[in-house]
């Protein structure tokens, strides 16, 4: 299995690695090495949900976890390792916790690596080395002695800066072309020269290479009084309403920081239920979290935590999708028993906001900037729920495949969370989906109609999916037209396990004499026009 983003492999399973697939390959290259490769689209929200169990398990032993991205956990070891009796004992304990949390999934993701070192980057490199050692039969942890991190990193490849440090590949490529062969060579450069030549990104890379990245350069402790808390009057069970409040808090935080010319690089999100269950996560992003990025992280956290928090129409679909995926791995977990009464957003580190440079070579363009400003203005004009963007969710009916989500709750800069899975990935899960072309007009509410056969009798479909006659006339909204061509019934039965949402419909395509093509459904012996191929 391999995960693709923008046609490049961003992650792959051990089996894929064994077949010669590497991170950075293009789809075709990867498939040529391994024709049976199972390709899935990059979807951070899914990863966050899948990683949730691991976080929970480790959080039981260690406070203040920091989640850089799904798959990587960082925490300060000084306290915990004293408690567990040394770094090695701590590593062994954490490894057991993670492995038991992963359960059967462990075989697919490969061994767990744990690295302990000064600084995030050195620890990340150590963890990757540990992972390789574990694959070769090692004990799964690498502990770099205190103050030895710079020496540990010196012989390392610059490639680590991309994979672990998140440095732009272009910048690393430039380092290499300038003759810097390893991290030691980069660390040996005077920092003032690096700053003058490469600016802030260069300094970040330099600090990583020199194992001095305890905190990202330029960050400070947040000013006092920046904690934003919302106490709910009544316990809230709906994910969407929680996220809306989260959005409000994130906006307050972002604007309070913006007033001081700062941006949040690390934030702590806490939610607590009526029964005292709590979730506390730390989210960081070295380039700064915009309000939209904060909201997405709040959503990931609450979505992963609260399988028990069910939603309405929109939220239900989210919980549904999560449940469906969890079901595959057998890790559906309901660990929330009551409504949420408190939501808290707090910055842990901030830095000066240098603004975003508009990209000349792709990335963010002027058009993106204008459109996002206009979207913000529209939200102000007509309110949150009226300004929407499409998000893929999958389904069998034309109105199920995409749903509309509030534009202010999604990060317009980063549409990966909303995009449909690429071709090849989407073929499996929706048998019964009508083939393309899709109807351009999907009625917001279905229009009742009547369909009769040549003898004027109502056309019905039996429990076995057999039609009582051939549609000959369609009567709808005062019009009475002859049916020129038709096909169906295509019967689909959905959610038969859920009495409340069970749906059994027979679908027809009807083409009338005047050339209008409709998608009609027959549900409980009543006809509805649901869409027109306009």
């Amino acid at each position, binding site marked *: 299995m391999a995960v693709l983003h923008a046609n490049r492999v961003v992650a792959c399973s051990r089996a894929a690695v064994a077949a010669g697939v590497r991170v950075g390959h293009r789809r075709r290259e990867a498939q040529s090495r391994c024709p049976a490769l199972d390709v899935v689209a990059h979807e951070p929200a899914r990863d966050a949900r899948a990683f949730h169990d691991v976080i929970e398990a480790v959080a039981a032993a260690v406070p203040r976890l920091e989640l850089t991205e799904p798959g990587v956990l960082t925490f300060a070891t000084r306290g915990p390792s004293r408690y567990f009796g040394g770094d090695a004992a701590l590593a062994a304990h954490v490894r057991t916790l993670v492995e038991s949390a992963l359960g059967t999934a462990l075989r697919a993701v490969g061994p767990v690596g744990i690295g302990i070192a000064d600084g995030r980057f050195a620890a990340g490199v150590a963890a990757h080395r540990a992972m390789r050692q574990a694959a070769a039969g090692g004990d799964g942890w690498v502990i770099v002695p205190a103050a030895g991190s710079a020496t540990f990193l010196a012989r390392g490849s610059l490639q680590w800066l991309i994979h672990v440090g998140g440095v732009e590949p272009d*910048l690393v490529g430039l380092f290499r072309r300038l003759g810097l062969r390893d991290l030691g060579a980069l660390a040996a450069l005077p920092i003032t020269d690096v700053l003058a030549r490469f600016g802030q990104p260069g300094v970040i890379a330099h600090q990583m290479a020199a194992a001095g990245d305890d905190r990202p350069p330029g960050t400070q402790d947040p000013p006092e009084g920046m904690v934003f808390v919302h106490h709910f009057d009544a316990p809230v069970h709906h994910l969407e309403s929680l996220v809306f409040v989260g959005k409000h808090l994130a906006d307050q935080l972002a604007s309070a920081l913006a007033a001081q010319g700062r941006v949040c690089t690390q934030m702590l999100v806490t939610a607590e239920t009526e029964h005292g269950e709590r979730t506390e996560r730390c989210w960081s992003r070295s380039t700064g979290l915009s309000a939209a990025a904060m909201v997405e992280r709040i959503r990931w956290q609450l979505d992963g935590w609260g399988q028990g928090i069910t939603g309405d129409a929109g939220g239900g679909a989210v919980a549904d999708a999560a449940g469906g995926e969890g079901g595959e791995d057998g890790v559906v977990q309901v660990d929330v028993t009551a409504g949420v009464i408190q939501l808290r957003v707090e910055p842990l580190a901030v830095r000066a906001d240098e603004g975003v440079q508009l990209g000349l070579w792709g990335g963010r363009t002027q058009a993106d900037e204008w459109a996002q400003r206009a979207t913000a*203005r529209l939200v102000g004009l007509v309110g949150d729920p009226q300004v929407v963007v499409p998000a893929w969710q999958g389904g069998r009916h034309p109105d199920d495949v995409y749903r*509309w989500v509030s534009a202010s709750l999604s990060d317009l800069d980063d549409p990966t969370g909303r995009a449909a899975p690429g071709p090849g990935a989407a073929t499996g899960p929706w048998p019964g989906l009508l083939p393309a072309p899709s*109807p351009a007009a999907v009625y917001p509410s279905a229009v009742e109609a009547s369909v009769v056969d040549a003898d004027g009798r109502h056309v019905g479909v039996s429990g076995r999916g057999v039609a009582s006659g051939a549609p000959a006339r369609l009567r709808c909204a005062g019009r009475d037209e002859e049916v020129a061509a038709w096909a169906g019934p295509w019967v689909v039965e959905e959610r038969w396990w859920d009495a409340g949402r069970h749906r059994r419909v027979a679908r027809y*395509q009807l083409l009338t004499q005047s050339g209008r093509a409709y998608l009609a459904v027959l549900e409980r012996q009543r006809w509805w026009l649901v869409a027109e191929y306009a």
Partner: protein
Amino acid sequence: MTSASVAHTLPRRGPDPDARDRLAALAPRIDTGSLAAERVVAVHPALATVLPQGLPRGATVRTSGRAALSGALLLAAGASQAGAWTGVAGVPELGVQAAAEAGLALERVVAVRDRAGAAFSDDTWGQVLGALLDGFDTVVFGAATRVRAGTARRVQSRLAHRGAVLLIVGAAGAFSCDVEVDTRSTWEGLGDGHGHLRARRVDVSVAGRRIRRPRQDSLWFPDAEGAVRRVEDGSANVTPLTWRQTG
């Protein structure tokens, strides 16, 4: 931009073999920054015969006929593929999948819809359209009949100033249209209880005061493979399908 920063953003020969393709793909995106200076919006290649110059900026375009909605989506698709954003207002029935099939880049689509039971007033529509035209290159609008003449005039003068394209689906109401696109469609693939809708032949005619001379053409929109292309003379659809002449 200094040469140093170009050097580190532009991949050299060695590490990135498909740099040329990537640059070619980026070229239209770079253009969008300066599109205001150009006077036309690119259209889908299949529409090259009916709109050889593209859509004039600042124009109000109306689509009508059986394929009015998908026609408007197809007109917006050219700019969308080139990196422009598409605003959709007053089209609550928009089929998102059909929009994607017509070629709209869904990650750059933002829709505004009325509150259920509380339709926007004439004044709100005016403000919504104003905001949309400020930020989006193409705006698909489906509620033209609910806008009064004065508001329509204000919206259109803003449109001319900003250089966006307003695509009106169906009745134009009080808007005066610069380009009229009429569609007639014939579906194929559906039989008497068998087959399914597979291909649609759309006869497009384009006229209007900002069009030099009226033109007509026929498109497969879509053809049996889901692509949008011109109906070439003499060649019918690629796969044998049951024909049914209607409409």
